[in-house]
């Protein structure tokens, strides 16, 4: 062993294995995609950078109120003139085309995503982009079967959908929004996040390649103002938002008193509950996947580890050992486990909350890893000795930071898990099936993973209880969010 084990204790070192960026042809600047064409934005354009290098990727247009108006008007025209008049099977065929085009351009999209978002290429390549194709494929098949969506015969689309998506899974969130909306016969205006517009703009090219009628999909880039203009636009019939609870609240207030239907996927503070009879090694992998997948930039992340007191030390020891093997660095390196934090602003938030955690008395431990010189980085960090009242047990950090609490009985685990205004997800680790079922019944969360975590599938409804929002995405439920009953007045 001596020969191959280096002095720092690492068993094996890896040579750099960067994915080539040559497959990706990025333009120097991007306009808005409205009515099937690229147009200039009338707002102040901005730059999107790579969070791992802080290097500029492209100049991005910003949509003014007038641009948003034009995009909604284009979507309305397309809704009335072409899309809603197409047969369901033809709408479905367009969506199947999109699914295939995403598969054909999968590597390019993965590279673009990792470049713009900072997530490891192994995640964008193996999780994000395959799920994007799957999402379009799944909803494509629904387009001519709407009578079976659970709303009775002849359900109708809502009209124009305004969709606002976050920066953590840029292209995947686009797919979650656009695929069911189009399958149901709506047209869309989508605003990607300010820091991650690139893959949505590449998607506009795919829309062109698929030959979609003009105006069915419109992409407007910009900051919060652009999103707000879209939400309050009077000719919008549906608002779908994924993002923070604070913004979700504002959206709920903005649409109050209107006819608009709303779906909100908001924040979370999920409990990942590990019982003493769990397979500990698998649980440790699940804990890592739960909070360090995508740098913890996941609304359903398992950010609160609830571990049964008698196995606490063992779990934490093994967890620290496992975290010490994670490789942080270049998102485009195929061996990278932890990529870059998406923005300087988010890094600041993670730092601030971690400092508060320390000040409030929790014990901080960070994986020993080298932090690259440029870019935004945060080493995987766990806090032990966290109290239920601690800030880091209550507020969503949205970063690679795990708060560890303990419990003795299932009842205590349930009480602690539910002790949050959020209710998006939860995890249960135990070898006992009956315990899983009883726990799952009592956890107030929309998605529960038993002996796994952070699994997503287009057939599986996803969404929160309480202040994690309302409405579901995925599955038949996600389709219903874009339909109204044919009998409704």
């Amino acid at each position, binding site marked *: 062993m001596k020969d191959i084990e280096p002095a720092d204790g690492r068993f094996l070192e890896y040579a750099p294995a960067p994915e080539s960026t040559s497959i990706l042809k990025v333009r120097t600047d991007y306009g808005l995609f409205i009515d099937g064409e690229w147009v200039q934005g009338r707002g102040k354009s901005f730059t999107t950078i790579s969070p791992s290098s802080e290097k500029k990727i492209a100049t991005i247009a910003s949509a003014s109120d007038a641009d948003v108006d034009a995009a909604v008007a284009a979507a309305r025209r397309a809704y009335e003139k072409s899309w809603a008049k197409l047969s369901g099977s033809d709408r479905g065929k367009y969506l199947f085309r999109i699914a295939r085009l995403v598969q054909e351009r999968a590597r390019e999209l993965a590279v673009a995503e990792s470049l713009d978002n900072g997530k490891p290429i192994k995640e964008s390549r193996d999780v994000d982009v395959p799920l994007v194709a*799957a999402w379009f494929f799944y909803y494509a098949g629904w387009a001519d079967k709407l009578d079976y969506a*659970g709303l009775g015969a002849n359900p109708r689309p809502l009209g124009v959908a305004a969709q606002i998506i976050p920066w953590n899974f840029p292209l995947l969130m686009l797919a979650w929004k656009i695929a069911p909306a189009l399958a149901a016969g709506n047209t869309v205006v989508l605003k990607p996040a300010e820091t991650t517009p690139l893959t949505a703009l590449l998607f506009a090219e795919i829309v062109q390649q698929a030959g979609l009628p003009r105006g069915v999909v419109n992409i407007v880039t910009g900051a919060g103002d652009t999103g707000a203009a879209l939400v309050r636009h009077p000719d919008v019939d549906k608002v779908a938002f994924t993002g923070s*609870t604070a913004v*979700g*609240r504002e959206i*709920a*207030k903005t649409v*109050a*008193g209107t006819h608009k239907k709303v779906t*909100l996927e*908001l924040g979370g503070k999920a409990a990942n509950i590990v019982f003493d009879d769990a397979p500990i090694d698998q649980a440790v992998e699940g804990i890592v996947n739960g909070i360090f997948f995508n740098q913890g930039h996941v609304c359903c992340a398992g950010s609160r580890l609830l571990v049964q007191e008698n196995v606490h030390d063992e779990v934490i020891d093994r967890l620290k050992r496992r975290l010490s093997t994670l490789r942080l660095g270049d998102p485009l390196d195929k061996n990278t486990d932890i990529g870059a934090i998406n923005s300087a602003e988010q890094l600041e938030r993670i730092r601030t909350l971690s400092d508060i955690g320390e000040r409030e008395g929790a014990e901080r431990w960070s994986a020993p890893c080298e932090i690259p010189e440029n870019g935004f980085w945060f080493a995987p960090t766990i806090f032990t000795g966290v109290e239920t009242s601690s800030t880091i047990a209550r507020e969503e950090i949205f970063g690679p930071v795990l708060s560890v609490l303990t419990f003795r009985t299932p009842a205590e685990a349930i009480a602690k898990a539910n002790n949050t*205004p959020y*209710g998006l997800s939860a995890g249960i680790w135990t070898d006992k*099936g009956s315990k*899983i079922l009883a726990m*799952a019944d009592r956890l107030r*969360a*929309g*998605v*529960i*993973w*038993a*002996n*796994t975590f952070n*699994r997503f*599938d287009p*057939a*599986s*409804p*996803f*969404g929160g*209880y*309480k*202040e994690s*929002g*309302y409405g*579901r995405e995925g*599955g*038949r*439920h996600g389709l219903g969010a874009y339909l109204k*009953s044919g009998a409704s007045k």
Partner: protein
Amino acid sequence: MSHLTIPKTYKLYIGGAFPRSESGRSYEVVSGKGAFLANAAKASRKDARDAVVAARAAVSGWSGATAYNRGQVLYRVAELLDGRRAQFVDEISSAEGVSASAAGAQVDEAVDTWVWYAGWCDKFAQVAGAGNPVAGPYFNLSVPEPTGVVATVAPQGAKGGSLLGIVRTIAPALVAGNTVVAIADEARPLSAISLGEVLATSDVPGGVVNILTGSPAEIAPWLASHADVNALDLTGAGGLDWVELEVSGADTLKRIVRPEPGIPDRALGRILGFVETKTVWHTKALI
């Protein structure tokens, strides 16, 4: 021989008991012809908050009951309502100034509403849930669960609705296991309170339904802003400043059903307006 009647004191229905308003306030209720009928309790903010506390405390028991059991309890409400038909016909005809046969038809509709929703208790989950064919070794199931505490505003002054209006707003919320704080028809609250007496004797656990009489314009904002209320049924709030109620409810991201004129239809959608979908991924062993 004439018998001097003993008029009933109409009070609130909170936590299975019939208290007067803690504020000591009451208001005069008159018949369709303007004659004095009763002094109803005028619920205060404290009464509204007490009702939410009672409703919250009742959630675990009611939502934890089996669906079959909830169905039987709601059916029992229909039985007892039907048994007290004469009293309701009397109250409805004096409140609305309608004939006894019109009032009787309204009671029939109310009874049938309870029967209809009772039958949904152990069926709606089969219609609204799903087994999801995910691409992986997982048993994946979506099931509807109750949202929690639902505050409802019963239709106000709807034609033929002094009893049916409140039944149509309360019953669907109970199906999934929610508990309810209901604001009665302000001008015609008497049959709502008599409905409380039916509920109190129908095996509906105390706190599962709470009925407040008084001013909806006054009470609804207290419930809309209450952090322990999960959903707001504004069906009967069309005459109030309901936009402000929706804005207020947004602070705690309440599920909100917007106003609709008249008496709402019986509909599966009204059950599903107050449920959450829970999706559980169970790992399958690789054998």
